[in-house]
């Protein structure tokens, strides 16, 4: 039976380096994806994800399982991402949303895991790519905290209690935050939403 995150972390605390490897293997992909969607830069996302793991490792001696491991992990990740976004806000403003696909290193970074099976012909592939780009940009336009809330809710499937602890707000405030984020996405993605709603 697989050991829980908390048990693995307690084993790391006891000096078991192999348990740290298991945590790394378990959370590297969710973390890198979360951070990539937050900061919109693959290299930066990987650097931040490394920093998250490093902080977890550094904190092993003081680790007390007072909350879920994922709450702690994504709290570190969210704080790092929010700081990074704030630090590079002006740089990010300069990135043109209309830059050609090949020149847009961020878009070019995204490698769908199963594109070949999903898009048998080039036209469908391009349509799907344009949709993805529109969705990404809609997420990118959200205020940072709303973006973090949507990503944690939608992709990490954390419960409201966990997300509210990560974002340091009440559950009621979180629900309101998510509602406003979905409202903004609904407006931003109106053409796709109308299309989707018809299906």
């Amino acid at each position: 039976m697989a050991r829980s995150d908390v048990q693995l972390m307690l084993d790391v605390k006891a000096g078991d380096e192999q348990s740290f490897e298991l945590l790394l293997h378990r959370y590297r992909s969710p973390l890198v994806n979360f951070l990539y969607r937050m900061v919109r830069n693959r290299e930066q996302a990987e650097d931040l994800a490394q920093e998250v793991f490093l902080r977890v490792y550094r904190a092993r001696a003081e680790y007390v399982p007072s909350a879920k491991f994922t709450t702690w992990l994504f709290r570190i990740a969210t704080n790092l991402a929010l700081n990074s976004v704030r630090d590079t806000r002006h740089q990010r403003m300069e990135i043109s949303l209309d830059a050609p696909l090949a020149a847009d290193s961020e878009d070019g970074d995204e490698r769908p895991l199963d594109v070949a099976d999903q898009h048998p012909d080039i036209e469908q592939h391009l349509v799907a790519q344009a949709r993805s780009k529109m969705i990404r940009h809609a997420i990118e336009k959200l205020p940072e905290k709303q973006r973090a809330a949507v990503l944690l809710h939608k992709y990490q499937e954390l419960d409201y209690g966990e997300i509210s602890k990560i974002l340091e707000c009440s559950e009621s405030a979180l629900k309101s935050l998510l509602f406003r984020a979905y409202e903004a996405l609904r407006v931003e993605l109106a053409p796709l939403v109308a299309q989707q709603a018809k299906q």
Partner: protein
Amino acid sequence: MDVMSCGRMENRILSYMDGRLKDSERLEVEKHLATCAACDLRVNEFRAVSSLLDELPQIAPSPAFDVRVRARVAAEPVKQSWWAWIAPSPRVAMAGALLALCIVWVGLRPSGYAVNPATEAEINQNLPVLENYDVLTNFEPLTDLPAPVTDEPQDDANQANQQM
């Protein structure tokens, strides 16, 4: 049961979509949606948004990711407890203990220069003479004085006079 207002839907719409409402709350929401076309439309559109978010592909961490994390972890300094700072090794600890013992022994040992009170009073009394000791021993006029006459040579001289 009161009919829910559109304003109260704000905090429940996503929980409803996620299936995280209690049965009573879910029934309340469904009752409202049955009578409110605007909220019903919003729920459908939010579902469409959620479905669109599912379309975003995932990225895979680069192959070097794990290697870089391991390298950074390996470069971390080994943490030592406070005790480790006090006793870095048994040999150093032993040397420190011996040094401390030596210091205590030297401190408690009676001093070789201790003077009893009577001697100290005598020294104090003769102190002016001692202070002038160098002057007195090197006082030139004193070197011209005849050598002190001892008893023995006097006896020899008397014997010589008697023989004459």
